[in-house]
Each structure stands twice: as C-alpha cells, then as structure tokens.
C-alpha cells in the first residue's frame, strides 16, 4: 500500500521543519521523513540533558498540533515510479508518495584521512558533538577539535556543556583568513550573533590558526595527536579528537531521482530562486543546496515550502532575504578554503576507505584515475558508506570532474538495506549488498 500526501519532505532539520510550517494549511496532507529517532536535524539534534533550543521549540509547537505526519526513524532508501519513496524503519519497509517532493536532507562532514584517523577515539567534529548529545560520556575527558570552519566552535561549546575539557581548537585556515571572515560577518546579523554567542563561551579555549593535525596515535585507542604548521610539530595528549574540514551536501537522493547538480568539487543540488530543482514539482532547501548554515537553511525551507504549494503571493517577502543569505555560502567557502597540505596527509599505507579498510596503495598520487578504475583497483566506494566519506576525500586530491563522474551513474539503494526491501525494489539495477 502507498500512502499519498500533498507534500513529502525528506529531512526534519531546520530547512525541512520550516518548509513543513510554511506549506501547512488546514486539510493539506504533509509528511516529513527523517532517519533519526527525533526531529531537529543536525543543529537541533535531541539532547536529553538540555531544554530544546527556542527556535526549534516554537517551530515544533506549530507542527506538533498541525496534523503533519512525522515519520522519524524512517530512512529513504530508494524510489519507485511515481516517484514513490521507499522508506526503511527498524520495523519494516513502507512506501509513500507526494504530489510534490522537497529534499531537505542536509549535509555531512568532509573528512580528510591522516595516519591514525581510524583509531577509536577519533570522531568527526560534528560527529563527536552529535554523539555527546546522544549521551556518549565526555565529562572530564580531554578533547581536541581540529579541521576547519565554524562547526569546530559549535562542537566545542556542546562538549564544554557536557563537561569535556577542550584542550584546543585547531583551525587550518591562517589567521588572516579568519580575521577577514570575521570582518565581513556583520553583513549577516544573525550569523554574527550566533558567532558572538559561541566566542563568548569559548574565551578559555585556545583557538590556533594555520595549523592542522597530521597524525593520531594510540594502541587500541587514541592517546595523542600530532599538530603541525608544516614546519614544527607538537604533540598534544588527548582522549578524543573531533575532526572535520567543513561540510558537503547529501545529494545522493535527489541525484538518484535525476535532479541536476551544481558545483564540481563537492556538488550541491541546483535550485532556482524559489527552491525548485531541475525536475518540476521537486524542491530542495537547506544545506543540500549549498553550505550556508542554519539561518539560510530556515529561510530556504520557508521559501520552498510556500513555492511547492503554489502560494506565489507569499514568496516575494522572502526572496530578497534568501538571496542575501545565499551570499553567505561564498563567504564561508572563501575564508575556510582548504590548504594544500591538509589534502595530502594520507600516505600510501593510510586507510582511505574505512569500510573496506582499503589504503590507496598503488593508486596513491596517480591522479587522474577515474572513479571506476579506482574502485576496481582498491574497492573504494563499495563498502557500507557507499563512498560518502572516501570519495569526497579523494576528490580533494584529484582533478575536478572526479565526483561528478562517480555521481553520473547512481545506483539504488541509497543506503545498505535489508534483503526484503531489496527484493521489493526489483528494478533490474545492481544494488549494493546489505551489510
């Protein structure tokens, strides 16, 4: 059986929740799908020890009583004609269809491999934040956050709140770039307020610029990291490292459906000024269309929600603000641009594909190698994460069409799925086996 809705939104983060609110009208059937047990997405991820953020609460108060259908712990894994969404939950598979569809499926971290990054105790920077919100014990632990971008600061604040000792935040961008980022930030008042709130809570945490982590060491667990500026190294003992080099959009689902992408290094879903993708009736909003933070995600969500429901008179008030928020995407990318050395920390023996435990070995440094050739050579992209980590890391060291070539031939399912789900798909493609 297929449940039919007027609008199906994939992703219950800021963009998806704003879209659900703005698209709502009595009698409309709206569904929001998210693979987490609770709505909120990344920034508003549920934390049982904290009161929910005010912005989330006010949105949720509207939505909770609106009759909007929330399908949490449901993951979109494939499409069937229609397009019907095939969803998998811990209890089974179900199918739903929307007259209109809105992708608000967010972004994930960009990870750059370095020796030791597979040791237990090494996490994503936002990953460690998310795990701490989920109760991972960090109180009293010594933590280092390293990589690039504002997420390092947001993660540090969460970890401090959970009692961790944050030894240092290690930013690869040089001081001059960080200063220029801050100097122009007041153009975006909301982002400025958010940055000030973070900085105020971090006055006691050292914020080093122009340095990066070049190695993590420990026997079965992390016990120290090596920090370098390219000339001198220094060892920092720590029990946890959170590392991330910015974010990349989760384009897999819209790409599988056939939505056009934009940008070639880490592509995003292309949308017009109202959030419509290249496919009529299919919309996208938030980080899946480009990395611009929560303020932009909310505006885009609100805009795409009304646009999807055809309420053109409500669009105009939002268009100018959305355009301004979009300019922040470039501002972020420009000043936290990755420097050459951090892209080349992995050696021939460093694991690049965590799933298959595959080192780059013979393919190391032999760019250009097209994605299919690499896959045959190394099994890269064939494991549980389906290349969501290693292919983006490799794209940083290879000529630009690398990822676009990989993405040009997407294959369902979008995630490893149970056998019965696979059997139901029956579309003659060659799915990734379940693990």
């Amino acid at each position: 059986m297929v449940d039919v809705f007027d609008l199906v939104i994939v992703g219950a983060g800021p963009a998806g929740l704003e879209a659900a609110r703005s698209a709502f009208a009595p009698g409309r059937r709206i569904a929001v799908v998210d693979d987490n047990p609770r709505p909120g997405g990344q920034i508003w991820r549920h934390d049982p020890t904290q009161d929910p953020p005010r912005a989330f609460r006010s949105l949720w108060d509207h939505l909770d009583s609106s009759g909007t259908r929330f399908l949490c712990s449901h993951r979109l894994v494939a499409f069937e004609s229609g397009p019907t969404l095939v969803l998998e939950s811990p209890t089974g598979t179900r199918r739903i269809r929307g007259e209109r569809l809105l992708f608000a499926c967010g972004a994930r971290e960009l990870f750059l491999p370095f020796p030791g990054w597979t040791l237990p105790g090494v996490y994503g920077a936002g990953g460690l934040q998310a795990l701490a919100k989920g109760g991972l014990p960090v109180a009293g632990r010594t933590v280092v956050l390293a990589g690039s971008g504002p997420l390092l600061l947001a993660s540090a604040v969460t970890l401090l709140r959970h009692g961790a000792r944050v030894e240092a935040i290690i930013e690869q961008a040089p001081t001059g770039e960080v200063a220029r980022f801050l100097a122009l930030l007041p153009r975006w008042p909301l982002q400025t307020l958010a940055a000030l709130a973070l900085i105020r809570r971090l006055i006691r945490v050292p914020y080093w610029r122009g340095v990066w982590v070049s190695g993590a060491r420990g026997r079965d667990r992390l016990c120290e990291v090596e920090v370098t500026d390219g000339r001198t190294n220094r060892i920092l003992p720590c029990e946890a490292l959170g590392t991330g080099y910015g974010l990349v959009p989760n384009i897999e689902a819209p790409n599988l459906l056939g939505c056009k992408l934009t940008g070639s290094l880490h592509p995003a879903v292309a949308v017009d000024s109202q959030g419509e993708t290249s496919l009529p009736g299919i919309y996208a909003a938030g980080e899946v269309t480009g990395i611009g933070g929560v303020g932009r995600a909310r505006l885009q969500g609100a805009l795409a929600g009304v646009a999807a429901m055809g309420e053109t008179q409500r669009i105009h008030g939002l268009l100018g603000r959305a355009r301004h928020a979009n300019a922040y995407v470039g501002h972020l990318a420009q000043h936290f641009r990755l420097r050459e050395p951090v892209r080349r920390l992995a050696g021939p023996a460093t694991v690049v594909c965590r799933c298959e435990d595959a080192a780059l070995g013979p393919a190391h440094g032999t760019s250009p190698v097209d994605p299919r050739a690499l896959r045959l050579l190394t099994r890269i992209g064939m494991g549980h994460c389906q290349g969501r980590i290693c292919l983006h890391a490799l794209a940083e060291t290879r000529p630009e069409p690398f990822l676009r070539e990989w993405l040009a031939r997407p294959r369902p399912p979008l995630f490893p799925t149970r056998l019965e789900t696979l059997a139901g798909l029956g579309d003659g493609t060659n799915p990734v086996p379940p693990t």
Partner: protein
Amino acid sequence: MSPRSVTVHVNGVPVTLPEGTTVAAAIAGVTGHFRAAPGGAPRGPFCGMGYCGECRVRIDGVIRLACQTPVSPGLLVETGG
C-alpha cells in the same frame, strides 16, 4: 530536566543511562571497540549521524547503527562483530 533512566545490556553487562540517549552512549560506557574492521583493527563510532557504519552492532540480534538507535528497556547489545 531529569529524564527517566533505562537499563540495557552490553555484552552481558548492565548499563543504566537516561532515556533519550543512544545505544552508542551505552556501549561507550563499557568498551571503545564497537566492531572490527576487515583487517581486524578495532573501530568505534565516527560520523555520529548514521552513514559511516562504524558503530554497527548487534542489537536484539539485528545489525543496527548504535548512534541512531535510542536506548529502550532490556535491549541486548553485542559488540565486536
């Protein structure tokens, strides 16, 4: 806010933690070793948001992602597979 507490078993060891936390948190209280990589090395949770697969463990007999599974009373968790 003080949420109710929930007890689960990790490799036979009872672990009590607040409702709303994840199986990943429960395991981390007992061991850092969630699964073994193909080469045998221990691995623990990494991306924290449900796609890297490093926190895959057996939960009530089914392989699931510990980071996206909330604790519920009586869950049986086995790591190291």
